[in-house]
């Protein structure tokens, strides 16, 4: 709990922005859904033959898993793509059903005798609707809206995966970091927001009760104030169109690198930058770049080679860079110079062992057959994992390697339960736990050099951006990256603050 409070305090500015994005997403999608669902409900309530197919269709839309719906929408023109617009479309789809159902139920439950009298008294159909049916159906419509808002607050957390921002950013970041504090930093405010929005709508519905008509102006005032606040907030958050959009995938290192690129562009080129950090994965980030949803993000050459261009992994840094650069160029994308570190597998040993035995490279491990090895499940199974490694270096251990959870291997190594493992070369835990990375002296592991990739037209339009990013070439070592990761993951500091400190320290920006 204290950790959570500390996290919230240190991230309060970012958090206010995320919360604002979340509120705007839910408020806007619910408003659009109401504008669709209520008239549709009115039409459907009058024609039972229509109401069944309409409700059926809305039901069907509701059953599509939200992540799948976002996935379907990304390649579509106009309503698709990456970011807020797509999220709004998906959230609206989910919000329509409860509002539609509330409207139909409310109208169909108006006592027939009341409607009959209204007609017999000479009210026109429009007057019957406005003066009689609508006010009597309103409580049911309000409960439909309440359901829609609560669903919306929950579903909007998933919108983070397609770069719409919101509190889901923390949830995805926390999941990627396996850090409950960060997950809670997103989940708890989202839950509170859902409760608050539900209570506010319930109160509004209560006050709109005709028996409290005297207070009706209070409700109107409250709604106006709320709408104004939301509008101002959204205006402040977006703050006019940015010159360019920087993206990142949804794990700590990517968020840090996205922030780094953004700050460098801001400092060097003097442009305004919008951040779409926490995109759901390589495919989504690449798609976003192609569709112009983002202009720049940092990719790893090995990932681009295998995951985007479907080529076998390779270990030659220069060769991989050249191949990937050419393939990107064919798509109108420019691969900029590498930042300087390689986020590949790292063979790790305890620092004191390395010093005591004078170990520098993986080939030195061959002289320690009595050591206990432990690896993550995937590394043990992959042909380019342990099998290939032991063949390439002639590694023989007396005991078969232990299978361990990837998140535990660093601590298991530090605690002496195992003596050697394969981790992530840029994990913040390496320095924090006093571990040493052994050099891959036989170039066994594929390279995953980090390098910014940008839309070529943007670089032509803003030559200063290309110059600024070239200035980052070779400036970030694996040790730097590990410290940055640890500052965010281990010390729970705000990525923006961490990056600012780093840029000040290395100078030149």
């Amino acid at each position, binding site marked *: 709990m204290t950790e959570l409070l500390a996290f919230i305090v240190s991230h309060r500015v970012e958090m206010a922005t995320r919360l604002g994005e979340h509120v705007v997403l839910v408020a806007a999608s619910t408003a659009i859904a109401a504008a669709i669902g209520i008239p549709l409900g009115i039409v459907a309530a009058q024609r039972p033959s229509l109401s069944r197919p309409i409700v059926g269709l809305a039901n069907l839309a509701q059953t599509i898993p939200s992540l799948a719906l976002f996935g379907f929408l990304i390649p579509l023109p106009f309503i698709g793509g990456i970011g807020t617009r797509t999220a709004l479309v998906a959230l609206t789809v989910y919000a329509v059903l409860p509002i539609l159902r509330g409207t139909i139920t409310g109208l169909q439950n108006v*006592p027939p*005798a*009341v409607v*009959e*009298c*209204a*007609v*017999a*008294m*000479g*009210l*026109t159909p429009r*007057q019957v609707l406005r*003066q*009689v049916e609508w*006010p*009597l159906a309103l409580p049911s419509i309000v409960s439909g809206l309440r359901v829609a808002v609560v669903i919306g607050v929950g579903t909007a957390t998933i919108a983070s995966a397609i770069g719409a921002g919101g509190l889901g950013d923390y949830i995805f970041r926390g999941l990627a970091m396996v850090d409950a504090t960060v997950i809670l930093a997103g989940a708890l405010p989202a839950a509170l927001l859902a409760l608050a929005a539900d209570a506010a709508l319930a109160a509004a519905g209560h006050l709109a009760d*005709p*028996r409290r008509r005297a207070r009706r102006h209070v409700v109107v005032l409250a709604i106006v104030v709320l709408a104004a606040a939301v509008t101002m907030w959204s205006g402040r958050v977006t703050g006019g169109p940015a010159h360019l959009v920087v993206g990142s995938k949804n794990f700590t290192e990517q968020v840090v690198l996205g922030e780094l690129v953004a700050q460098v562009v801001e400092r060097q080129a003097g442009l305004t930058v919008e951040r779409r950090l926490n995109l759901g994965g390589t495919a989504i980030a690449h798609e976003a770049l192609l569709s112009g949803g983002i202009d720049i993000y940092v990719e790893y050459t090995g990932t681009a080679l295998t995951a985007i261009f479907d080529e076998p992994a390779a270990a030659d840094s220069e060769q991989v860079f050249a191949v990937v650069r050419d393939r990107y160029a064919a798509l109108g994308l420019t691969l900029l110079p590498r930042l300087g570190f390689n986020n590949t597998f790292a063979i790790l040993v305890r620092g004191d062992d390395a010093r005591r035995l004078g170990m520098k490279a993986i080939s030195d491990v061959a002289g320690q057959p009595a050591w206990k090895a432990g690896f993550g499940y995937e590394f043990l199974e992959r042909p380019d994992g342990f099998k290939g490694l032991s063949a390439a270096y002639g590694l023989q251990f007396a005991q078969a390697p232990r299978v361990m959870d990837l998140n535990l291997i660093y601590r298991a190594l530090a605690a002496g339960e195992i003596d050697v493992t394969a981790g992530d070369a840029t994990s913040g835990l390496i320095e924090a736990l006093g571990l040493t990375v052994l050099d891959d002296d036989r170039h066994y592991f594929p390279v995953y050099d980090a390098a910014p990739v940008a839309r070529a037209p943007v670089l032509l339009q803003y030559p200063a951006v290309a110059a600024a990013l070239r200035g980052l070439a070779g400036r970030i070592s694996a040790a730097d990256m590990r410290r940055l990761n640890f500052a965010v993951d281990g010390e729970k500091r705000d990525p923006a603050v961490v990056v600012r400190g780093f840029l000040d320290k290395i100078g030149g920006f």
Partner: protein
Amino acid sequence: MVEPAVQFAEVSASRGGRLVLRHVSLSVPQGQTVALVGRSGSGKTTLLRLVNRLLDPDSGNVLVDGRSTRDWDPIALRRRTGYVIQDTGLFPHVTVADNIATVPRLLAWPADRVATRVDELLTLVGLEPAVFRERWPDELSGGQRQRAGLARALAADPPLLLMDEPFGALDPITKGELHAEFLRVQRTLHRSVILVTHDMAEACALADQIAVLHEGELIACDTPANVKASGDPRVRALMGRSG
């Protein structure tokens, strides 16, 4: 000769594909109360609904003030035709006063005239205006609801009043009170009234003429005294049933 308030001429009508009225001809003179009596399903409510065009006949004509309902604008026709039903259909979301004011407001009466009219009507139906004006329909007893429903139907001073089992859901004592109230109001106002009821005693107490419907056909139409004396077993059965 004065035109009848309502005249049914050879009217046939069906509901849901079933013929429920067969060649009914009946005349409602100005200022008189005509009761439509019959068992459930005899077609009496359907006949009533033809008058304010909630339904249209399959064949034949319904004339209101000498003009076929097909030629009336339904909205204008309904605004000059009061309508009272068993569960009153009071709007639950507005006060008694606002319920009564509905049609006058649709007719765009000035606010002070509406307010005066509401108080006048509440007094007429025996509800103290100061007490009942701002009450909500669900705060009224069954009898009070019927009084308010009658006041609402009379609000715009319609020459014609349609009442469908208006006293059907009341206990015998309240029903007796309201019968007396209805006769008192009718002695003052002399409206043309069509009253649907299954209760022959009620019809005899309130109506100038009784029309008996049986399976969609008009089998008798006469004064209460003559209907009571009828030898038709179908009419006698209705008398017996209402005790």
